[in-house]
Every structure is written in C-alpha cells, then in structure tokens.
C-alpha cells in the first residue's frame, strides 16, 4: 500500500517536473530520470518496455511509437528469413528507444517475440548499423500474421558483412512485443 502511494507520488512529481522544466530536461542526462516514452496509451498496447535499473515497465501503442523519431531503411532480407523482395521499412531506431530507456554501452538489450523467441542485441550493433524497430512495411502496418506488428530490421543491403552468417538472421526478430534493458 505504502509502496504504491510512493510510486504514484514519484510519478506525479516527475510529470510536474517535466511540465515545469520541459526545455531544461533536454539538457539533463537522459538516464537520470527517464521520461515515459509512451504517455497515456490510447489504443491496444503492442510493446512492453522494461527500462534499465529498477524502472517501471511501460506499455506502448503503435500511435505512440509513430510519434517517436522515425527512420526508413530500404533493403531486402536474407532468403533464410522467408520474406522476399526489397521493401521500405519504417520504424523507431532501436538505439533511440534504448537510450530513452536509460540503456547504454554496458546494458544487456533483449528483444522478445510473441512466440517466445528472444534475442540479445549487442550495443555495438546499434552504433554500427542502427537497426530499426519497424512498424510499417512500404507504408502499411503489419498484422501479426504478417510477422508484425513490429520487426527489427538491419540495413542488410547497405552492409554486406551482415549477410555473412546466421547471427543477423537470428537477430532479425519479428512479432516483437517486448524490449528489456538490464
């Protein structure tokens, strides 16, 4: 009971602080007081975010994700993934998400899929290839049957090194429903 009250108090204080010191907060280190990425989800939650440390888990809907900075990657995927053709993938850079969640070089970043598939993404990948957590393919949202609603897309065409082994085939995770930073 006491804990819940304290948590609520802290959340309210944070909101007030953000409202008052909005512009100032940009100057602060982001992992010090991570702001909620998806404030007040309207629609159905598609992504669970577990921030670094003992931060509270957040739920995001697609509309909230679409409000975050977006990036396009146009690429074909390795044949082993079974998704033929070159497509334009639109989504949030995973690095942005991780940084917003207070993650960094020493964090362990794990993405989990609806079918219990899970994979750890090294921080170096985010720096080197800047993969995108895509929510649109060629401008269209993707249903669960189409391996949506979220797929982690690496720019395979831009980096031939990505096409070499099984690693990046494994890291291209679909039906993502949770991102966890530990």
């Amino acid at each position: 009971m006491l804990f819940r009250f304290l948590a609520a108090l802290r959340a309210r204080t944070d909101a007030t602080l953000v409202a008052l010191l909005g512009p100032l907060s940009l100057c602060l280190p982001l992992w010090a007081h991570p702001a909620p990425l998806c404030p007040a989800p309207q629609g159905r939650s598609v992504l669970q975010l577990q921030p670094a440390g003992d931060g509270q888990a957040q739920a995001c809907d697609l509309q909230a994700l679409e409000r975050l900075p977006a990036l396009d990657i146009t690429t074909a995927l390795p044949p082993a993934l079974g998704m033929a053709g070159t497509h334009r993938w639109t989504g949030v850079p995973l690095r942005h998400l991780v940084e917003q969640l207070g993650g960094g070089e020493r964090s362990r970043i794990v993405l989990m899929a609806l079918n219990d598939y899970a994979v750890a993404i090294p921080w170096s990948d985010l720096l080197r290839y800047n993969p995108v957590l895509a929510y649109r393919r060629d401008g269209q949202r993707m249903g669960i049957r189409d391996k949506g609603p979220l797929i982690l897309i690496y720019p395979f065409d831009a980096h031939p090194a990505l096409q070499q082994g099984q690693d990046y085939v494994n890291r291209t995770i679909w039906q993502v429903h949770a991102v966890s930073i530990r």
Partner: protein
Amino acid sequence: MLSPSAKQQPAASNTRTTHRLLALVVAMALGTSAALWWTLRQAQDLAQPHQQNDLWYIASVHNELARVSLLARQLRAREASAQDLVDRLDVLYSTLDTSGRGPRVSTQLREALPDTAQGLDGLRTQVERWSSQAGGSANEPGSTAARRTQATAAPTQALRVAEDITRQSDALLERLRQAVATVHLFSTQQTDQARQQLHQRFIVLSVVLSALLVGTTLLIARLVQDARAAKAASRQLAQTNRELEDRVARRTRKLEESRALLGFILDTSPSDVLLAEVESGRVHFINHRLTERLGLKTAPQTLFLPDLLHDPDTRQRFMQTLDQYGQVDAMEAQIGTHAPRWSSLSARLIDVEGQLAHLLWGFDISTHKALEAQLRELATRDALSGLLNRRAFMERSTALFDHCRRHGQPCTVLMIDIDHFKRINDRYGHQMGDTAIRACAEAIGQALREADLLGRLGGEEFAALLPHASADSAGQVAERIRGAIAQLGLASPAGHPVTFTISIGMAASERHHTGIEPLMADADAALYRAKAAGRNRVLTHEAAHPEL
C-alpha cells in the same frame, strides 16, 4: 660405343615415359578441376545461412497451441479479452504458416512425414476457422482498433470458440507432442544423413587429394631422377669436352709446326711468294725474298698485286688475264717500284677465308734478260764500227721513215762510200782499212744529230737517215761530213800519213717514195753519179728536176 639398337631403345622408353607423365599430369589436372568445381558448388550452397530447424518449428506450434488453449480457459473465466485470443490465434497461425520458410521445412517435411504435415495442415485450417469466428475480420489485416470493436462486439462468439478450443486442444496437443518426437527423430536422421553426406564428400576429397599427392610424389621422383641423370650427363660431357680440348690443342700444335715448316720452306725458296686479298690488300703471306726485293725491312700489312707491276701495259694485260681466266702462267714482267727487276710471274685467283685473294709466284729472270739484251745488241751491231748492221738499219730506218711519212715530215737519206778503199787496204794493210772505217764511222756519227740513224751497210758503204731534214739542211750536213773526213789525220803503222775521201749520194723523200728502199735506191743512184763525176763530192738525186 653403343650399337644402333641400344641407342634406339632408351629413346623409345624415354618417349613412353614422357607420354605416361603427360597422361598423369593431365589426369591430375582433370581430377583437381573436377574436385574444385564440385567443392565450389558445395561452397555456393553453403554461402547462405538456412533456417531449417524443423524441431523449433514444431515445438513453436506446440507452445502456441498450448498458450491458445490456456488463453481460451482464461477467456471462459473472464480473465482475458477476446482480442488477446485473436492475437494469440494470429501468432499460432503465423507459426503454422510455412509458405515463406526454407525449402526443407515446407517440402522435405511434407515428403518425409506426410501424416504429420497433413495434421499440421488440418490444424492450420482449424486455427483459420477459430480466428475468423473469434475476430470476424481476421483474414484481412485491418487496424487493431477495428478488430477490437468486432471482438468486443462478439464476446459470445469468442466464448463459443474458446469452448471449442478447450474441447479439442488436449487431443491436438497430444498429437503435436507425438509430432515433436517424430520430427525430432526425423531431424536427427536428417542431421545424420547430412553428416554422412559430408563424410562421403570429405572421403571423395581425400581420395582426390591422395591421388594428387601420389601424382606429385611421382612427378617429384621423376624430377629428382632427371636432375641426377642431367648431372651425370653434364659431368660426362665436361670430361669429353676436356679430352676434345686436349686433342684440339695437340692438333693445333702439330698444325702450327707444319705451318712454320711450310713458312720456312717458302721463305727459303728462290722464288717470290705473295698471298694478298684482292679487295682489302691484306697480306696473308709474303716471303723474305719478295720483301727484300721490294726494298722493305719488314713484311707489309697491305699490298695490292697490280701495284707490284712496273709497266702499265703489262699490268693491264696481267690483271686482265688473271681476272678473266683466274690464273696467269709464266708471264714475264718487271716487278718492284723503284728498282724494277724482270721476273717470270705466275698468279692464281683463289678463295682465302671467304675472300678473293691473289697468289703470286715469281722467279727472278733479270740475269736472263740482261743476257738476252746483250745477245740482241750483238745481233744488231756491226762489230767493227759499232754502228747498226745492215739488217738492223733497214728495220729501224723503215720504222723511222714510216713515222716521218705518217706525220708529213721530210727526211733525207745519205749513202756514203769511201773512195778507193781498196787502195788503202792494198797499200797499208787490212788493219789500216779497219782503222779508216772506224774513224770514218766516228766522224760521221759526230756530224749527225741524236735522232739520226746511221748504219754500215757492208764493206766501206754507210747509210744515214735524217728525219725532219730538208734537202738543203741535209746537204749542209753531208758537206760537213765530207769536210771532216778529208781532214782526218790518220797515220799508218809505219808512220805515213793516210788520207782518203768519201762520196755521198743524197735523196730527200718525195711523195712517190712509198718506202725506205726506193728512197735508198735514189740516194744510191746519186752516189753512183758522184763516183762517176770524180768522187769526193756530194750529189743530190735529181730525178724530179733533170734539167738542173
């Protein structure tokens, strides 16, 4: 020494070995190429990663179905929403969807385990039906919001689907568990097959590599053998070469000795020897005798044969003959430049070291020539007076007269005869007669010019031919001669003074004189007249002017 058959045998076996080696190399190349091609094809197959894990696939299906089953129970207990069920059914459906997967999952599994594949197909149809019943529009990938409203609108439908799922799930899960075991067995078999295949491939590769190793070893052995044989052959060659060099050196020494001997022979021979190139004049050989003859201290480096010949006419004749016939035999010519000497020369045009050369042999005949000249002198001179005898006078006066006539010059003949010569002989003896003739000849000679001819025709008769002399000038000469004779102060052995006179008949050449004889006959006629007219006088032939 090898017999011919023994020589041929190694050659034939050599060819056969070479052919065998060539076949070996070709076989190795072919084998390696085939292995390489095959390996490259394998490498190409392995270039792309394949997600072909059937076990993960079937396990996922099992898990998702279990989840759907759990969710269905929760839905019935009102602990989960219809949308959750729809989402889970979608996940299950997408897990079942093998259309986009690797070839093994879709085709091989279907071929190897048709029952399992059929069961999975049936499950997919079932899930499709549940999904459409629960979500209504699950077929079309519409917005989640739209689906949500439908799902919330049909909770009863969802409840019915949940009931259906709960009813069937246990049997389905049981079948899937069996399928997991079957696929596991199938997968292990597949893995083992792949292992065996790889094993076989590596065995094939090792066979090819072993063959290559054997071939390479054979080639290296052959190379070593060849290298040894080459070494031995080169050693033998060096030995043979040394022997040959020794033999050549011995022969060269012998040759030099015989050459020196030949040189000595040629040097000491009484003949002149020269061998010189035609074009360059390079002297191949010249003996001491000829060197000395040319007035040189050492043998010259270059010498041209034509330069040796003194007389231009002879030189031309000599060289022409030599060029035309390639040889000249015993031609008499004078050789040497400042003190030419007569030689009998023989020459050959020969080839020396690819160049034309003159070979000259010469025998000194200057002594013979001097003797010959002396004999000729004896034959043309009168022994008593030293004048030309009749034959020589006639020869030379004929030539001189022809010369004058050809050039349109006048010439005059004097016929001189001592008056009463018989009396001198009778009175003072023949010796006095000879003295008179000698004195007379000397006196006449002194009165004449260098170009004039004088001869003793016989007895006390002399004849003189004066070229380029008119009758007048010749007449003066004749008078001078007559005067000189009259004043000769001769004395007999007994001391008596001896005087005598001469008569001279003179004839100048006229147009009708075609030779010396008619002119001499005219002069003779004039002499006859002078004798008849009382002697001691000069009379000119006057046939053209009889009235004078």
